[in-house]
């Protein structure tokens, strides 16, 4: 799976719009990430999560969101980062993927940013392979960089099994 795909060939339909795009931002291990605001359904605080035995380890479990069952994905593990320490409470962003709801567990959810296309850049080739897999590209913000997450890839577990 880890073959190197030239960053330029990444699908970037969401970024093709000439003007600005809105992103829900979130933090993991201090790094700023963003996903397109329209894919986001909900932002949740800490939730009671039911563990799912035998599931891939990145699947934290499932939770009840107003009567719908949402599968929680630990984005930290997905990105190859260590598990969040127990005492820190995380937050989640709920996204809809093919009619199914997934909750992306992150450290913290930030504000919604409107970002101009001009500030977008492809993944630098030096980016960690693991990250390159899930990153569409980078936005240059004033004080930091925002990594745009590819939600589809993040939830595509068929590829890494």
């Amino acid at each position, binding site marked *: 799976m880890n073959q190197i795909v030239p960053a330029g060939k990444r699908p970037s339909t969401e970024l093709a719009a000439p003007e600005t795009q809105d992103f829900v931002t979130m933090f993991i291990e201090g790094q700023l990430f963003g996903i397109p605001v329209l894919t986001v359904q909900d932002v949740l605080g800490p939730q009671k999560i*039911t563990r799912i035995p035998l599931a891939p380890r990145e699947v934290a479990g499932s939770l009840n969101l107003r009567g719908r*069952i949402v599968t929680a994905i630990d984005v930290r593990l997905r990105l190859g980062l260590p598990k969040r320490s127990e005492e820190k409470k995380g937050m989640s962003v709920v996204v809809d993927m*093919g009619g199914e709801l997934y909750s992306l567990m992150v450290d913290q959810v930030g504000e919604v940013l409107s970002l101009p296309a001009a500030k977008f850049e492809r993944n630098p080739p030096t980016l960690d392979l693991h990250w390159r897999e899930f990153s569409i590209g980078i936005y240059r913000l004033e004080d930091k960089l925002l990594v745009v997450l590819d939600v589809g890839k993040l939830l595509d577990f068929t590829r890494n099994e």
Partner: protein
Amino acid sequence: MDDLLSEFLTETSESLSTLDVALVNLEQNPNDPQILGNIFRLVHTIKGTCGFLGLPRLEHVAHAGENVLGKFRDGELEVTPDAVTLILQSIDRIKLILGHLEQNECEPEGSDDDLIARLNAMADGRAAGAPPPPPPPPMPTFESVASAPAPAPAAEPAAAAPPPPEPEPEEEPAPAPKASVPATTAPPPAVAAPAAPVPVGEAKESAVAAQTIRVNVELLENLMTLVSELVLTRNQLLQMVRGKDDSEFATPLQRLSHITTDLQEGVMKTRMQPIGNAWAKLPRIVRDLALEMNKKIDLQMLGAETELDRQVLELIKDPLTHMVRNSADHGLEPTEERKRIGKPEVGKVVLNAYHEGGHIIIEISDDGRGLNLDRIKQKAIQNGIATESELETMTPQQIYQYIFKAGFSTAEKVTSVSGRGVGMDVVRTNIEKIGGTVELKSQPGKGSSFIIKIPLTLAIVSALIVECASERFAIPQISVLELVRVTGNSEHGIEMINNAPVLRLRDRLLPLVSLKRLLKLADGDDEQQETFIVVTQVGTYTFGIIVDRVFDTEEIVVKPVAPILRHISMFSGNTILGDGSVIMILDPNGIAGATGESGLLGGTQTAEAQVMRESHADAKTSLLVFRAGGDDLKAVPLALVARLEEIEVTEIEHSHGKPMVQYRGHLMPLIGIEGVLNLRDEGRQPVLVFSDQEHTMGLVVDEIVDIVEDRLKVELSTDGAGIIGTAVIAGKATTIIDAGYYLPQAFGDWFGRNEKEYGSSDAHPPRVLLVDDSPFFRNLLTPLLSVAGYEVISVESADRALALREQGNEFDAIISDIEMPGMNGFEFANAVRSDARWAQVPMVALSSHATEKDFERGRQVGFNDYIAKFDRDALLQTLASTIAAAKGAA
């Protein structure tokens, strides 16, 4: 229009549009058996249905098409574009006829001989190259629909192109109705809207659609979900208000509660339909079948008003039809035969539906000939599913299960009704898909019955909530048989056979599965003081799931798991409990599969065990299991072993180069298994002591493993000296040692002594006839008796014994079992005593029922003595004294 007909039309056009897609898929993946199976099934259904509706033309076309597809399926024909084209053409023809049918409620005039001829040719394997007659005489009589979708000579490219393209008009000879290759997804009406004289397609759409209002299932599904949510919320509210009597919310909440309940019931009801709806077609089908097969059939339908979920109903409709058809066609004998064997002329097929604990049970039974065991065996061997020797060891119940295998039709000839092997595998799959089970019972000559157990509704199931390693899980109640609580000191204890946990449950070993281990929930095996075992049944396979705690049962709303989790076969879904938490629903099928038991063959294990138990209820034997000269397990019947000793190695002495010890004032020779003597270098040497009056002998073993009480069935006998054979003991293959072989090795005079002892003037030792149906006992007693100096002839039945009498054999004594199939011991004794030849031979009865009454009865019929099985000493003594008494009397 006839309801039946209109329903047929709607259904068929749905099937047809599926077919088009499937066929094109098939062309791309010609080797995909699933697609092929699907197509075959669809065509089969169409054929079947129109046969009953009296639509010969349709039926013939479908039948011919099905033949070709059947060849594809069996791999006899290659899936070529030509072939697919031909199939597509026959489907077009079917559509055309359907169009006319829709309008005029009758089949159009005309003939399909050309098409059928080509299909048959294809089926016979000669058609591939032979081009169809160029512009075929386009059925002159076919008036209403101008020209048939020409069996286009050049239609091949059309079908060859992967996404079904528009039909190539330039290749159509006629100003064609372009019904040939329809667009993939469009339903037939849209496709069949040619500029032809008669607008067949449109007519169909309007006519049928107007009669039925089809409510989208999804809509109902959504409603159902919403209501479930409402119920959950209401429950939460109730929880909050509970205990606060003076709450101002109490009254409105109560109202809300009532309304919610009503609403829930109402929505459930929209989905519930009487099962009679699914049966509506059956009387006619059976009637037509009766006419066709010239049988008299009485179809009884009981409990037609039993309601079940619409979705379930849809899913079991076809299986039910199949099964009734099977019963009527294969199950019931022809009238002549029934008369001959003295059955009522009119065959009975009974459908019975009723509710039972949240499930609906549907029984389909007939009073016909029952399943043909031999044919199933034959077929199983033919299809390579089982070998003859495997079948030998199976019970009829196990063998019957084969009819649920794909491609398994035992009908001697393929009729238009059934017998293509579509049936039972599909039935089973469909029923299992909705969480149901099928059971099958059959009695030769008396008929067979199928018992289907399905959940009332798919949306809401009753589930048992259990806990394991602090996680809760739901187990569908339908598969739960009972719960057993196991504590450290209760009489039920979990026992281990080489890490495989088992539980003795009512004289039966129940294999257990640890949920903790299965789901990898805990790392260490911290044994709990108290656990629960959920006895679960999948098909006929029963096993226990070990859990930590059991809570209540709860009605749960089943939701499918997220796609990324679908590969985990242990879960059939997930749900939200009343307290709002998410919980996984365990799939007993998946668990059974994970433990290595497939639904079919493994499933019959308990059935087999049960049967065995019934026939040999008392044939349990205590066996001493040990290891000697190798890692494999060996065993001897405990009854033969006098004592187990551990001897200090230093005490072993050698005399004449043979090892022996002083034991209780005598010298006891030590013998090794298979002639190899592996004495330990130091410490204590375990020895099995065999003893007979003054002689004792020590069999040197490496390790004494266990004493097991098990049914002993020697399955593999060997010619190896000193070995009776191999049997499965406590789940392990174990070599049964023939103690009789080793005894003479220790003492040259073991036999000689006996001769002296009996001191008979005859040169030959006393001859004993042993009659016992159990091969084990024959194997056990024969060496025992021969060691004691008798010449033993053993036979497995009273009939055989009497046959020996006819041959002029003479015996000094007869030992007979009482419980035997066929002629039992009492009857045998009567038979012996009633004939002069053996009238004076002493008889000893052997039985596990050693009550006073049995003794009395035994004596009455002529047994000289009556001994309990396993009482070895008593047997030898009795035998000796009876023979002596008889000799003295003589």
